[in-house]
């Protein structure tokens, strides 16, 4: 648990031993599997000490894992020559070849199920969903086959399903979803949802090296956001799954959140500090396993809890968190636990509708002031 020491993402541990002993060389690939193309400039930013966006951090993580471990391969729609809908794998196929950066037919269930078969044989597939909205097409293999495999003694399934999520980009109901809770209820799946470039890279590497299936969510509004550019450690590092990150220390109330709402909560905290309210912000980073200890520790300190998520209200993670706190820290609470979430509708397309649908800074301010004054 990292809440004590994690301010500024300091809990990111430096590299555990890489599986093949192959920490990435600045000179290029260490494995001979490559199809020959040179390592493009746009995956050399960290090597050069330049800041990277969240998208570039994800790209570097994928590149370095493909170099490190010949068992890792990527599959999905339009990820090869085209480089993916968001260009995450731009320039990969020329270097790693079509078998390791594999274009697939439009068949989310098909290639997710196939990834499981490859994982049975010892490979470590990374599936790209063009938009995470489409992961629902793979709900069947994910929840029935993949999530249960280890438990039913059919072996571990080390695999990652990653892709863009989230609203605020006018994508409409089928390119804006946050489908994490559809999987939170399924024992056997891990769920990661980073909100900084450093965590995006370290958590994706940890997910690829993890021996369980991991769903990895990338908020597309963060992909190229200038305010999230940062210089990453030059060395190979992972951020362990299951550890929340203390984003901001405060004493008056705790906001437990993740994804884009960490940054909205930070904006609210900047306003509240002028009103004499010190907000503590806990970034979950991993929803499953849930860092219950970090939540309880913060609540025991501030005695007030607000959960904020961009996901819709009913069945959202706020309900689960509130029940855990009720079970284990009810005596520490000085106010009711509250939540700020999206509305219980599909994600609307038109800007005025979508803005009304999404939780925003003003919602967080209202809820935080109410709690602080309770």
């Amino acid at each position: 648990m990292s809440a004590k020491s994690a301010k500024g993402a300091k809990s990111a541990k430096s590299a555990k031993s890489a599986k093949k002993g192959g920490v990435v060389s600045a000179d290029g690939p260490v494995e001979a599997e490559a199809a020959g193309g040179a390592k493009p400039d746009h995956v050399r930013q960290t090597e050069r000490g330049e800041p990277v966006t969240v998208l570039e951090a994800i790209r570097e993580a994928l590149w370095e894992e493909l170099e490190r471990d010949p068992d890792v391969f990527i599959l999905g729609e339009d990820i090869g020559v085209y480089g993916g809908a968001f260009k995450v794998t731009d320039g990969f196929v020329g270097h790693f070849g079509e078998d390791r950066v594999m274009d697939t037919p439009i068949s989310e269930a098909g290639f997710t199920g196939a990834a499981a078969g490859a994982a049975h044989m010892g490979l470590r597939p990374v599936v790209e969903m063009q938009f995470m909205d489409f992961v629902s097409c793979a709900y069947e293999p994910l929840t029935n086959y993949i999530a249960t495999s280890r438990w039913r003694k059919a072996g571990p399934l080390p695999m990652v399903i990653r892709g863009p999520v989230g609203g605020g980009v006018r994508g409409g109901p089928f390119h804006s979803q946050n489908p994490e809770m559809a999987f939170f209820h399924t024992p056997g799946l891990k769920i990661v949802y980073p909100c900084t470039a450093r965590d995006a890279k370290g958590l994706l590497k940890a997910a690829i090296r993890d021996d369980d299936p991991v769903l990895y969510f990338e908020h597309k509004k963060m992909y190229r956001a200038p305010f999230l550019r940062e210089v990453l450690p030059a060395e190979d590092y992972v951020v362990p799954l299951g550890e929340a990150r203390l984003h901001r220390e405060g004493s008056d109330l705790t906001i437990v959140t993740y994804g884009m709402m960490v940054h909205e909560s930070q904006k609210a905290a900047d306003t509240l500090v002028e009103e004499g309210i010190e907000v503590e912000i806990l970034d979950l980073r991993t929803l499953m396993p849930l860092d219950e200890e970090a939540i309880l520790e913060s609540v025991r300190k501030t005695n007030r809890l607000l959960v904020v998520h961009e996901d819709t209200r009913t069945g959202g993670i706020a309900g689960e968190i509130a029940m855990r706190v009720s079970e284990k820290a009810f005596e520490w609470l000085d106010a009711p636990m509250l939540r700020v979430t999206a509305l219980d509708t599909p994600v609307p397309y038109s800007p005025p509708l979508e803005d009304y649908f999404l939780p925003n800074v003003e919602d967080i301010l209202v809820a935080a002031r109410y709690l602080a004054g309770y």
Partner: protein
Amino acid sequence: MARGSGGTVEAVETELSREQLHEIYYWLQLTREVEQVLTHLYRQNKVIGGLYRSLGQEAGAVGTAFALRRRSDGTGDVISPAIRDLGAMLMMGADAADVMKQYMAKGDGPTGGRETNVHFSDYRKGYVGLISHLGVMVEVMTGVAMSFRLRKEDRVAVVYSGDGMTSTGAFHEGLNLAAVKKLPLICVVENNMYAYSTPISRQTAAESFVAKADGYGIRGERVDGNDVIAVYEATKRAVEHARDGGGPTLLELMTYRMKGHAEHDGQKYVPAGEIEEWEARDPVVRYERWLLEGDHATEAELEAVRDRVAGEVDRAREAAEASPMPEPAAGIDDVYAGDTGWTPWTRRAPHDPHEA
């Protein structure tokens, strides 16, 4: 080997040795006898849940698996049997006692009582247990074949399907992906005329299941599924095609499910006379007759095989019956790596919700 109804027997050329032909007989007999014992156990209420038999279609599982590279060190071909492919599983190395333990939900079976019947896996021996959601195994086995491609291994993946499974979206997505990537996958469609109670006329408007191979741009072949040698020869061609990099084959086996979907199913939906008609084409009886009339075996040799099978099946049943049921809390761990499980506070002392 005999074609059509069971009356006449024609000699067909096969390169299989006398010893191999006797081995095929052993597997057919073993499959049938294991299921016979399971039927007794079911009637004694010792089987938990349903019992799914392959009576009358054993030649499909046995004939196909006989054409595969069967090893126990993780270097052979890999199959995913459907519910009526017990024979193929036994041939890949599954233990008859383990199968019985699975059906009896015993604690020291391959899944420790967590999963049902033939839903269990052994990747070194080369079988991947199915789950109940039909079609997903076509996707999974496409991925197994994908791993062979990535590692440049000349291994073949085989997925078994009933006629009903072909109607799922997963069947299509998996087979299409394998076809596009030209992966070494053989999709065996065992057309036994019924999916539970639904006849094939209500499953597809296509003339045959093998006709669908054209739609995927892959090789297709249809064969008498009750002729074990014909099934073997057809599978051998599909295996060679896959190993040579030719891509998938859809192999349709024409057979018949002599029993209901599961033991409880009284088959009232089957037209009068149909079962009797297929009884005359019983694949085990046909094969016995072919062996004897073609001088491939003597009655004494076949008798010896049957005795051997009877002894093995008896020992398997004794082991399965002696095996314990699982401890109640034995199902809580291993949801994740290193996971030791969670116990509700109401089942721990002292009772304190803070500790759950």
